[in-house]
């Protein structure tokens, strides 16, 4: 995918002058593309716009297209009312990254390089696991968590959220490690390194980019989770920010600027991911569909 993007970029910048009609067509394409992006991303602009608005602008009967009378009141109320939720989300998401990578990275290595027995069955199981409706898992998780006294516990939420990330992370790491030359691990083995040592000090550093990508996506999946969060937390002070937003709009429908400010802050990890790992995002979306 990345090579495809690179090719497209090269051929677009490399168009030679002297064919004005072609250049005009290209310019038209860019204009149309910009319009499409503006339309598709309008809801995001509208969130940003509303997050700076004063209460009287929010209920006015004409849209306030630009926050000319902008105020940070919405953001101030976020940190007083949603700060706790953001901390819970951060803790749960980081925990999910750790659990996911601890399960996924060794499994991917075992399947891709060590030819572990039953690797096809495991790949298949993970592919199918992604398709299980979350509500089915939530039903059982709730009953187990309830009997173990883990409702409102971040531990339960980390484990539940990891079910969103483990298959994806394993598949993405597996397909990366398949491309790593065998000689790398063999050289380490000849030098007398154990398999575990080879994995930790040779394979993981080589696979750094794939590990980072898998980790970022795991973070994002856990950060965005709503179903497990709303079913496994009953007390407000233990709820992640997605549930915070949900209960907030249930309780105060008029305070849209604070709700939107919360939305903006809750979107920051996604924005960071797009900036840091832009190349991998398209791969990430595609990998679920094309990997066997």
């Amino acid at each position: 995918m990345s090579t495809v993007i690179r090719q497209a970029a090269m051929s677009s910048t490399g168009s030679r002058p002297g064919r004005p009609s072609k250049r005009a067509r290209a310019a038209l394409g860019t204009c149309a593309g910009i319009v499409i992006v503006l339309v598709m991303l309008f809801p995001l602009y509208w969130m940003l716009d509303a997050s700076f608005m004063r209460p009287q602008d929010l209920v006015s009967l004409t849209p306030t297209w630009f926050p000319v009378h902008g105020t940070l009141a919405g953001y101030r109320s976020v940190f007083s009312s949603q700060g706790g939720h953001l901390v819970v989300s951060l803790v749960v998401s980081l925990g999910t990254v750790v659990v996911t990578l601890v399960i996924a990275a060794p499994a991917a290595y075992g399947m891709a390089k060590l030819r572990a027995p039953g690797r096809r069955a495991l790949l298949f199981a993970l592919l199918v696991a992604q398709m299980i409706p979350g509500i089915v898992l939530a039903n059982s998780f709730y009953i187990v968590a309830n009997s173990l006294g883990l409702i409102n516990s971040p531990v339960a939420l980390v484990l539940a959220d990891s079910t969103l990330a483990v298959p994806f992370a394993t598949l993405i790491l597996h397909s990366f490690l398949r491309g790593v030359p065998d000689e790398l691990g063999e050289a380490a083995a000849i030098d007398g390194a154990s398999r575990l040592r080879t994995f930790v000090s040779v394979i993981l550093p080589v696979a750094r980019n794939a590990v980072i990508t898998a980790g970022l996506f795991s973070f994002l999946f856990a950060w965005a989770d709503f179903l497990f969060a709303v079913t496994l937390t009953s007390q407000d002070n233990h709820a992640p920010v997605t549930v915070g937003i949900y209960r907030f709009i249930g309780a105060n429908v008029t305070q849209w600027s604070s709700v939107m400010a919360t939305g903006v802050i809750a979107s920051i990890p996604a924005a960071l991911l797009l900036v840091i790992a832009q190349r991998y995002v398209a791969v990430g979306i595609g990998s679920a569909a094309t990997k066997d």
Partner: protein
Amino acid sequence: MASVLSVKAPAAAAAGAAPGRRRRRTAWRAAGFVVPAWIYVLCFYVYPLVSNVKMGFQNYSISSFYTGSAPFVGFANYTALFRDPQFVSIVTNTVLFTLGSLAFQFALGLALALFFRRVFPLNGVLRSLLLVPWLLPLVVSGTVWRWMMDYDSGVINQTLLHLHLISQPIPWLVSTNTSLVAVILVNIWVGIPFNLVILYGGLQSLPEQVFEAAAIDGANAWQRFTRITLPMLRPVILVVLTLGLIYTIKAFDIIMLVTQGGPANSSQTLTTYAYNLSFNQLLFGQGAAVGNILILVAIVFAAIYLRAVRDSGGDRR
């Protein structure tokens, strides 16, 4: 494997170990890396699935949490569902939601994918910006759309009124006639990036020569699209539609944030209904029964998907 053995053979011979034994030990040691994943699969996917199937046959309610027992009741949960007059309309909603979302996500995603095949400056940047709706937490997207679809202050109604396209505000979220359309619209928006990326990838993998040959033979753009692009893209189309279906049928966040299935169940789907039964009415047995219906649907389409992946994978490798 052969190369591993050949490299290791001298060392093994020196140590005096039989190659067969070493090979077994190798496999056994490799298994150590995948055992945690197997245990994980059993605990976090297989066990919940099995227990959900079992719960569908049990009278699992709030009292079960205190007594710790849930009597088996056969198909009582299912008959209760099917006798509920609302159930038919919830199934209808689910079908409309899924087909409506899929059809438009796919059509718009394909149109955008075809558009982005053209060569123009900023193509890559614009395409990756279009991924943002996919990356955003669904709760955030749902919240924004709920605000945009507000009856009085929502930007959609205000704009339509200003353009004189409507004379009355549309009660998007508060009328039983429009709530389902509203959540479908939001879900289409959410799903376009996914369709765009996969279909674009599929288009890029088609050999350019075929199109050039067809153009030389005098095929016009529409003929090239229907006679060449669509047939050659068929495996990718099958993948994107079945995956889209599996994701759409379990859509939860958007509906919960935008309408909560209301008003009067008018935008309730099987997924949100299962949640309501289990977690609002505390009828876990019936909730599990609805979940089992969803599992059945998922199995059917997962089988289609896996076949499609196998077919298209054969071309690629």
